[in-house]
């Protein structure tokens, strides 16, 4: 029993160390030429353009359900006018970055783990090494930066969609149109709120990509191993986002 706990602890510590090493190597290798522009642009498209529908739907429904929940509650003490402010702040600062980040972890992080993991178990990573190509430089660096850049852009679009989703629900579904909904949102949401969400999203993006690549590169044992790596990538990236969210919020405010 103690042996088991000890073994688990060692494994966790070893994993954390290996992950930290991967991230620091990824950062260091960013500035070592050549930069993989082609791979980078391919990833920008995959992460950014292709994730837009998922993030859009997530934001839309988050905005609507939040409006639904709060509008009813606020009406009880005639504070409906504050619903836009609450929606704006909650969506921009917290909900869209975190939920959008987790959706992207499910979509992109898992795909990265599966792709890199398959490359690992079919010796393609070794083949890269043999062809004098550093796998971290070739695979991890472009994915890390592409996700760290694209996730904030996705979240920015998601913010707007979520806020409009709230307005749509209140005006069209609850049939209680509020004049100046958008003005009320902007009255309370400052640029800082928006930027804090963007900074969070950049970190979340980096977490999603590095965890995905880390799990991929650590894959062992054929198809089953790839499956395990994919699951682990999504779970760990999602947990990482939630934990990082707390610390980032603490630092940013």
């Amino acid at each position, binding site marked *: 029993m103690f042996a088991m706990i000890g073994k688990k602890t060692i494994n966790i510590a070893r994993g954390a160390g290996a992950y930290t090493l991967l991230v620091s190597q990824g950062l260091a290798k960013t500035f070592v030429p050549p930069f993989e522009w082609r791979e980078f642009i391919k990833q920008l498209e995959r992460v950014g353009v292709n994730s837009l529908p998922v993030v859009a739907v997530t934001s839309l429904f988050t905005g609507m359900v939040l409006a639904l929940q709060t509008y009813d509650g606020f009406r009880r003490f005639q504070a409906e006018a504050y619903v836009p402010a609450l929606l704006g702040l909650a969506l921009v600062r917290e909900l869209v970055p975190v939920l959008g980040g987790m959706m992207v972890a499910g979509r992109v992080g898992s795909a990265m783990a599966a792709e890199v993991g398959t490359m690992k178990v079919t010796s*393609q990573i070794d083949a890269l090494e043999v062809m004098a190509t550093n796998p971290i430089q070739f695979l991890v660096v472009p994915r890390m930066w592409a996700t760290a850049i694209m996730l904030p852009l996705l979240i920015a679009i998601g913010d707007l969609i979520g806020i409009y989703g709230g307005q749509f629900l209140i005006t069209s579904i609850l049939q209680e149109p509020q004049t100046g909904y958008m003005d009320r949102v902007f009255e309370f949401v400052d640029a800082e709120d928006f930027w804090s969400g963007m900074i969070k999203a950049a970190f979340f993006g980096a977490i999603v990509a590095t965890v995905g690549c880390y799990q991929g590169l650590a894959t062992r044992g054929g198809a089953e191993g790839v499956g395990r790596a994919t699951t682990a990538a999504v779970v760990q990236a999602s947990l990482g986002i939630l934990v990082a969210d707390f610390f980032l919020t603490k630092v940013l405010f």
Partner: protein
Amino acid sequence: MNSPLIKLEMVKKSFGDKAVLRGINLDVQRGDSMVILGGSGAGKSVLMRHIIGLMRPDSGHVFLDGLDWWQMDQRQLYETRKRFGMSFQEAALFDSLSVFENIAFPIKRHRRDWTPAKIANRVHECLDLVGMPSVADLMPNELSGGMRRRVGFARSIALEPEILLFDEPTTGLDPIMTSVLNDVIVNLREQLKITSITITHDMSSAKAISTRLAMLYKGDIVFTAEREAFFNADNGIVRQFVEGRADGPVTEGLLS
């Protein structure tokens, strides 16, 4: 005798409690076609990974022209890797790239001054050398096992390496494809004048391509000799392996 191109000195490697290489000594001379024979699980692939510096030995050294892989910094290590071409057991082609792009991959990375036309020329030259002139536009998953390996060969020679490593080039292929691949390897050696190291357990392939052979058994090189001497050796392990008999020291070793 000249100093060897590749020299392994007391290379040991274990995974957990399992000793896979137990102190390997091996010299490969320039121009040799070395074939390393060994049964399943003898440590052949692990040995190959040490030769090209993908795995670090627990103790011992792998020298290339007198330079130890693990004394080099990363730039030197990658510079040295460029002198090698390696073809993997399952070809290890990049699935997301076409055959053309797979072969062009090392060229684009390491010959940055080449024009696209020159790259295309070289790719087609490599495909011709392995006897597959018309597959450049296909994707790896559209090829059969034997074709994939040949494309893997083509990729490994794209940078005109001095040393070629073949990891079980013919395993799992039919006899005809096996001899086609043997011919390809012999042709590559004769046309490009390169040193090659092949690991295999396929005797027909070993006979066809070797100039020297080494017998790997339970993580040790138990016998090394020139081609003729090797096939006539009276070493028990070699004899059993060459003749493919079920009874002999190898089987006894397995049972004991």
